[in-house]
């Protein structure tokens, strides 16, 4: 089952200029590529979440650069119509008691749309989405996007 989990890298960042450039240059040096990226802002701080092709390496590089960083299992879904499908997914998961903590979408160079969701119950979510015929991405898909 956990081959369907995607390792997301999250980091705690104060809203200070230069932090993003810092991350970008750390990744460039380590040849880590960002596939999806979002910032959740809240007043004085923000949480940067991203899906990368080499999560272990990215984690190490950021930790060594002094960031507070964690790894979270999330799910990735390829979509045709993002707003519509997000509502459907939230509904089917909600019925089984799996709630979405947050979601963010991104579009690849090949103009395919993907959705990343974090849920409170991964196992139920994976089973439910499988039953509904909604295919999930895995890490090898992320690497080849």
């Amino acid at each position: 089952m956990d081959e369907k989990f995607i390792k997301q890298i999250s980091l705690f960042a104060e809203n200070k200029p230069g932090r993003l450039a810092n991350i970008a240059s750390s990744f460039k040096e380590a040849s880590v590529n960002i596939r999806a990226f979002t910032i959740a802002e809240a007043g004085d701080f923000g949480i940067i979440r991203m899906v990368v092709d080499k999560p272990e390496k990215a984690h190490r590089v950021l930790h060594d650069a002094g960031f507070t960083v964690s790894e979270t299992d999330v799910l990735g879904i390829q979509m045709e119509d993002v707003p519509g499908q997000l509502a459907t997914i939230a509904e089917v998961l909600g019925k089984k008691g799996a709630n979405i903590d947050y979601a963010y979408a991104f579009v690849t160079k090949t103009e395919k749309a993907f959705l990343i969701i974090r849920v409170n119950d991964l196992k139920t979510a994976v089973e439910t989405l499988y039953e509904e015929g909604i295919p999930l991405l895995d890490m090898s898909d992320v690497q080849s996007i």
Partner: protein
Amino acid sequence: MTKWLLCDNMIEYWNPQIERMPLDELEQIQEERLRHLVDYVYTHSPFYKKRFDEAGVKPEDIKTLEDLQKLPFTYKQDLRDNYPKGMFCVPDTQLVRYHVSSGTTGKPTVVGYTKSDIHEWAKSLGRALTSIGVGRGDVLQVSYGYGLFTGGLGLHYGAEEVGSTVLPISVGNTDKQLELMQDLGTTTLACTPSYFLYMAEEAKDKGIDFQKDTGLKTGIFGAEPWTEEMRKRMEDATGIKAYDVFGTSELSGPLFTECTCQDGIHIWGDQFIVEIIDPETGDTLPEGERGELVITTLTKEALPLIRYRIGDYTILNKQPCECGRTHPRIMRVTGRVDDMLIIRGINVFPGQVESVLMKMPEVGEHFMIHVDRINEMDTMKIQIEMNDEAFSDKVNDIISLEKKVASALKSVLNLSVGVELVEQGTIPRSIGKSKKVIDNRKL
């Protein structure tokens, strides 16, 4: 001097006759020495003669320990005003050493020592080191500054007095500290608690495990205030026993430590008299009440101090200690009279903030208090470093952690404070005294 091993309870004493002496006998010694002291300072120091005369008190008025309260206080400012040697009671030819502490305000203070003063100092620490099980066969790494500061040389002489091997490395150069600690088998480390925390962080980064890779078992931490929670954190993280050390340069330097009971610091009664007073009124407070520490030196020759206002807040405990020592104890110092912040009329000590944060494993030990005045209103904001293990990537988790810390602080301080979690490594680390407060109020 020999070291005694009492077989009944296997507790070692440096000088069991003195250390276990019944309190009333000890107080008799104090009384005799006090009578001698007031005579001595009155006849040897124009400063004290003038002070006593102004207060209308003569040496012959001081007969009992209670009469001590008739004597005027001595302040740090007196040492500054009489810079450099106006309060000394001996001619320069009797002096064997100077220590000088740089004041952040005004003139520095100079302390002179006779040969006997140096020996009394070493004796005091010798008893203290024995009381935490440090003696012959121990390697004591002295990571306090050497030189004009009393920390390094103080511990150095105390350790030699009990026959320990001293590694006089002084402060800084953490790589070397960790290397020699391993190569020379350091068993005991003396430094500031903030430097030890820094050292522990560096060791962790280098993959050095204090328990497996070093022989370190005892830490002697002082020169800046620290808390019970910090002790637990340091002991849990490194497997050592952490002891508080106390003293100030005006009294000689570091003089006393806790004993293995870790329940207060024994102040050797044959050398010093302790009082706790109300800092506002100057009245002596009953045993057990928190107030300002005042110390009278009984055996110092060059610079004896009468009722010296130390400026630390603490509690006096005269109950016999489980270690068998009868000498009075002072409880952990909770703050400095001059560190106290007054925020919207409420007294706040940085130590209180620290002790709240130490009880919360979700946050790191590094914090900074920012005080400001916005629209005529005092505000207090505390920045705390985010802890790696506690980091959740959900915004609400972080906001609720900030709220949790704020409400824990409010319940202790009776004051609403802002809490802001910040990135690791952004609060400045200091090797000497940690500066925990930035006060931006323009008064």
